[in-house]
């Protein structure tokens, strides 16, 4: 509890302020009027329901791919926080300048989030497809349909089981729909990609042909994915789903930065013996160091303490100089206020105590938390580790091993003194008698 007390005392102003009750985020939905009728009020398609659900939480703008006035970016700022790209009937769209591949990349570089919805019977605009390919997601072409003759529902569509959800993705835990009618994607080994829904072993993606060969198929077995996420290094999020039926609420929340969003509120380290002095710049070898961080999670529009649910997602700290000398799991201490004087306990404090290695040099407290589906947390603090000062070593008589040596050195001195005295004495008495 002493630690918590000092935390309250020193929680720094550098940790950015509690996210204000932010303005409603906005979203732009781009669609093809030839495929979907989203602008009329009495539309009852599932996409219209999706959009009206979105409107509960976001300021939604719906525009057609034919609208040439679309602007994703205003100068370098986002015009919309989130972007939804629906299927198109043709590859070439009128707004190809505004929604070009380059503009989409700029958009995610400016922390925009992109949700791409695929379809078995239509295409994605060429720029969107190239953009996804560049990220390492390769959706199946038009008229390629994901099929699985061993898992078929009564209506003749593919039946999805809970096993299709990729374990540990931290984005979607279960599917609300059990039927699937759409395409599938191949993915590259891009490590930022988060596979969400995977094909079963017996599933494949093929065109409407009587026979299967390399030209009429796209994926075989577990190499196919029905929903794929991606979190860029700046925490911008992209997702592709093979069918609008996979537009799970969880997934949309994740893409639009409402779920799985973490924030590092503060990072401190100190000597164990003197925790009231935070972030000392110098440590001594073999000292006890204490490393403490506060992590919040964005829940229902405000920051809340982040609790690690799964040991695989444990927070870890590295104490490293080129190599990590220590790599330790951080243990939760309890909720605390991220800013001094705040009434709300909005952050979870994680901490670990360890022994500074017996090696002097420039060390880094490194936090590098990259788990699929969760915001990346990174921090590094450089400190000096010094060796023992001249007067910090043990004296020889404190070490029992050396007693013999100390005693014998003393004995030599004593014997030497006795020798000198005797030598003079013996010399005086016998000098006359003896000739040498």
């Amino acid at each position, binding site marked *: 509890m002493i630690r918590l007390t000092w935390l309250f005392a020193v929680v720094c102003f550098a940790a950015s302020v509690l996210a204000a009750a932010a303005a409603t985020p906005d979203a732009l939905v781009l669609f093809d009027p030839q495929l979907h009728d989203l602008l009329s009020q009495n539309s009852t398609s599932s996409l219209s329901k999706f959009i009206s659900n979105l409107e509960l939480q976001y300021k939604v703008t719906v525009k057609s791919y034919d609208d040439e006035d679309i602007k994703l970016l205003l100068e370098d700022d986002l015009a919309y926080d989130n972007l939804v790209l629906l299927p198109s009937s043709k590859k070439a769209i009128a707004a190809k300048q505004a929604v070009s591949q380059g503009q989409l990349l700029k958009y995610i570089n400016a922390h925009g989030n992109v949700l791409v919805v695929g379809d078995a019977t239509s295409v994605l605009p060429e720029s969107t497809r190239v953009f996804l390919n560049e990220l390492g997601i390769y959706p199946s072409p038009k008229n390629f349909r994901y099929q699985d003759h061993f898992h078929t529902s009564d209506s003749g569509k593919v039946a999805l089981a809970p096993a299709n959800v990729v374990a540990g993705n931290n984005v979607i835990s279960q599917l609300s729909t059990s039927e699937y009618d759409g395409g599938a994607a191949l993915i590259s080994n891009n490590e930022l990609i988060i596979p969400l829904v995977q094909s079963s072993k017996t599933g494949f993606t093929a065109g409407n042909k009587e026979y299967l060969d390399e030209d009429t198929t796209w994926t075989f077995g577990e190499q196919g994915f029905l929903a794929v996420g991606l979190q860029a290094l700046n925490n911008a999020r992209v997702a592709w789903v093979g069918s609008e039926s996979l537009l799970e609420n969880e997934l949309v929340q994740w893409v639009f930065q409402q779920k799985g969003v973490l924030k590092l509120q503060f990072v401190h380290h100190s000597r164990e013996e003197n925790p009231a002095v935070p972030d000392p710049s110098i440590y001594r070898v073999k000292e006890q160091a204490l490393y403490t961080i506060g992590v919040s999670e964005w829940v229902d529009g405000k920051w809340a303490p982040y609790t690690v649910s799964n040991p695989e997602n444990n927070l870890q700290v590295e104490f490293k100089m080129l190599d990590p000398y220590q790599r330790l799991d951080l243990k939760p201490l309890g909720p605390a206020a991220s800013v001094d004087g705040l009434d709300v306990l909005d952050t979870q404090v994680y901490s670990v105590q360890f022994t500074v290695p017996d090696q002097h040099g420039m060390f880094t407290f490194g936090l590098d938390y990259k788990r699929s589906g969760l915001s990346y947390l990174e921090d590094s603090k450089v400190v000096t580790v010094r060796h023992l000062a001249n007067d910090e*070593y043990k*004296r*020889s008589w404190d*070490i029992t*091993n*050396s007693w*013999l*040596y*100390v005693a*014998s*050195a003393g*004995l*030599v*001195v004593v*014997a*030497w003194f006795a*020798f*000198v005295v*005797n*030598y003079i004495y*013996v*010399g005086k008495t*016998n000098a006359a008698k*003896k000739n*040498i």
Partner: protein
Amino acid sequence: MAKKEVAIKKAQAQTGTSASGVSGVQSKKISNSFGELFAAISTTYNDYSTTLTPRLKLIDLFLVFLVALGVLQFVYVILVGNFPFNAFLGGFISCVGQFVLLVSLRLQIKTPERSFGDFIFASLILHFVVYHFIN
């Protein structure tokens, strides 16, 4: 020293003649040569104690003491390990250094005042350094 060597040679010569003189039982031969050896040692010892000055004897006694102490520390460091290595070096070097200085004194015994002064001065420096090195 010269007298001692002469005594040893004499003893060896005696052993040789007696060995050539005796023909027959092996054990008798061996016990005889042991007797000769002891006789040689006692002759040497007597010679040593009668001819050497007390100063030389004192120096030799101190030399033996230093060797014994050095051997003791060396055995100890092998058995226990060299953890406070500076302490071992300090203790051991004080023995070795004192030994060297003492031998120098013994060699220069013909100029007693000068050599003894040098000896005391050098020993003081040695013990000063050892004291600080042992920490």
